[in-house]
């Protein structure tokens, strides 16, 4: 049997917050502003609302079987063969997203901070701490997240306060110029990145949480807090940079940090602010990778998932280096394929699960009683 650790629901809340913010904080303002213009913040709020509904669906699915992970739920619902195929898709997705996030972190660092450093160097370093975290286990991850979230909020607070003098309300007018259809459309990337992909957290929730029922609330609250932070960053980007500049930038929130200037004294602190993104990126990556490794181990019913970490870690590094030939391919992928891919695995499959569960409900309950 695989080792079972339990984290408490507060730790889970922290993980959800970091996962929700994840890459959204860095790239979403630009994606939202590209279509919704100065109404991007409305799209962010809308996306957050819809996202919460989706997370609610995930908590429902999770709580059907409080002791099973997503992989095991798949197996129980669909049977061995079909269940495993769906699980494999899920594992493939989380694994791919680990590599994509690694690509993000590498490209962010090499574009803005260390342009002459090959991406392999930054990615290998990142992958080492990634593998390390997985090998140390879920409890260590959760505890370190508890520490890092404090740093995150301190930095976030500094960013918001220091950027406040640069705000210009003209930039946000006219409100609601774009029609609601388009706003809905442009909120789609946010829904996908921040909420749909939280399906990966079903590998932790509810099986590895000591009080699943209170964790359900924390799942929703965490998603809400994360969504609010992304919304705040989007509003600030629009207010400070204007919608046009926000859409133009690759990493608008980094550009935002560059704008900080308090009396010509507190300036050029964007490198410090980069810690914000690195923290979020890292924990999101850890959760994806954890889901992939642990899921694979569970699918093949291995005794321990640790032997998988090194080979998969190496593959992730290579994949992150070859996955996109250049950053334009990445942004095309982000706005097209990624959305449909996530929609299929994170929305279509869970909906299918709901249908199957409704049909097989009685049979499954009998099975459970039988087992007990």
């Amino acid at each position, binding site marked *: 049997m695989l080792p079972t650790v339990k984290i408490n629901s507060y730790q889970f809340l922290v993980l959800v917050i970091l996962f929700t913010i994840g890459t959204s904080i860095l790239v979403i303002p630009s994606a939202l502003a590209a279509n919704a213009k100065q109404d991007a913040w409305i799209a962010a709020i809308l996306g957050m609302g819809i996202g919460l509904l989706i997370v609610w669906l995930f908590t429902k699915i999770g709580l059907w079987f409080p002791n099973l992970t997503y992989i095991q739920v798949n197996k129980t619902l669909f049977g061995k063969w079909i269940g495993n195929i769906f699980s494999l898709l899920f594992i493939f997705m989380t694994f791919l997203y680990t590599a994509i996030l690694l690509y993000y972190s590498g490209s962010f660092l090499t574009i803005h901070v260390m342009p*002459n450093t090959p991406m392999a160097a930054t990615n290998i370093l990142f992958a080492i701490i990634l593998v390390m975290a997985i090998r140390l286990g879920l409890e260590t991850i959760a505890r370190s997240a508890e520490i890092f979230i404090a740093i995150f909020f301190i930095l976030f607070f500094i960013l918001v306060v220091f950027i406040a003098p640069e705000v210009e309300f003209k930039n946000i007018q006219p409100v609601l110029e774009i029609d609601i259809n388009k706003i809905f459309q442009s909120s789609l990337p946010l829904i996908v990145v921040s909420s749909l992909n939280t399906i990966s957290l079903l590998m932790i929730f509810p099986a590895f949480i000591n009080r699943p029922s209170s964790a359900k609330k924390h799942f929703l609250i965490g998603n809400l807090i994360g969504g609010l932070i992304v919304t705040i960053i989007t509003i600030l980007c629009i207010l400070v940079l204007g919608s046009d500049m926000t859409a133009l930038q690759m990493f608008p929130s980094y550009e935002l940090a560059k704008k900080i200037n308090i009396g010509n004294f507190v300036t050029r602190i964007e490198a410090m602010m980069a810690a914000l993104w690195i923290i979020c990126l890292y924990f999101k990556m850890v959760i994806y990778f954890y889901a992939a490794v642990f899921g694979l181990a569970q699918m093949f019913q291995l005794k321990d998932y640790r032997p998988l970490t090194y080979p998969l870690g190496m593959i992730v590094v290579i994949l992150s280096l070859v996955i996109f030939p250049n950053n334009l391919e990445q942004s095309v992928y982000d706005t097209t394929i990624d959305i449909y891919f996530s929609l299929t695995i994170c929305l279509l499959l869970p909906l299918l699960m709901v249908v199957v569960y409704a049909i097989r409900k009685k049979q499954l309950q009998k099975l459970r009683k039988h087992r007990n």
Partner: protein
Amino acid sequence: MKKGIFILLILSIFLTGCWNRRELNELGITLAIGIDKSDDEYLVSAQVVVPSEVSMKGGTGATPVTLIKGRGETVYEAIRKMTKGMSRKIYPGHLRMLIISESLAKEGIGDPLDLISRDWELRSDFYVAVARDATAEQILNVQTPLETIPANKMFSTLKVSEENWAATVGVTLDQLITDLRSDGKEAVLTGILVTGNSEIGSSKQNVETITPATSIKLDDLAVFKEDKLVGWLTEDESRGYNGIVNQVKNTVGTVSCPEGGKADIEVLHFKTKVKGIVKNGSPEVDLQVNIEANVGAVECRIDLTKPESIKILEKAYEKAVEETINHSIISVQEKYETDIFGFGNAIHRSNPKEWKTMKKQWNQHFTDLAANVKVDVKILKTGTVNNSVVVKRKD
């Protein structure tokens, strides 16, 4: 196994840390860049600090900055070609000024600006200005008193002048790009010019006399249509422009007294609100200007012990500001037909639907646009004395 990982981690820290290192003494810290164009080639000049000359210990008496030039078909190429004449690579992270020559500005500044906004080392907190009647190189070739580094002089002058006289605008790269890309506002840039003998200007001799033979001065605003320079405002129009776009912080206005003579109004607070309206399908703007001011100087016979006199001065200044603003709007409408005031954006904010149809021919709409200017001046104090010193003596 654990030891192995540990060693690997330690190694990775030490080995990757210096990958991309650039020591301070390898950087050519550039504070100003000038871009000229001649014969289809860009001529880029960079004002690079000579560190030993600006250090606290005092230099050897050589110039504090040096000018490096490079030619190329693109700006980037030209900048890299500079290394042919320089032992250090240009480091533009601390750039203060970007000077564009007037002839290049007339051709269009969009293309050369692309590199400037794309390059990762550049930040966007420097000012952009146009070299009037001169090449950018000539501007960067002048030594200045007070500030040893000419680029810093230009930067500070622009800042101080913008805050105290308000006939110039410090336009940062961000603002410029936003204006260039916006449908509802065209760009302006401050002009900068050289006076005097430009040959002496580049030598240390220039700062050895009390009145420098050559000096750099800020000039009026350059008007752009899309990314091309189409003309220059006069000083009055420049001040009107600043009033309209609400960029006046502090300035001095002169009004005529009823019985002849002049009085100065020191503006403390200047706030303009622009509101767009569409009346019968044609756009209009309402400008509401609120000014708080002091009496700065009185060079005429007016009895400042009476509150009515304040009213008279207020009315006079209201009229003066209104005229300045109206004059700048009308002359820009007639001469340049380009919306540098951002009235298009005002219409966009207030009437997004109508804006959609107007946006394409906005500059035509702009020329027929009516502006309703309302100025409200409040004079709060009369300075340290009440009546004019002259009046007292004659009593």
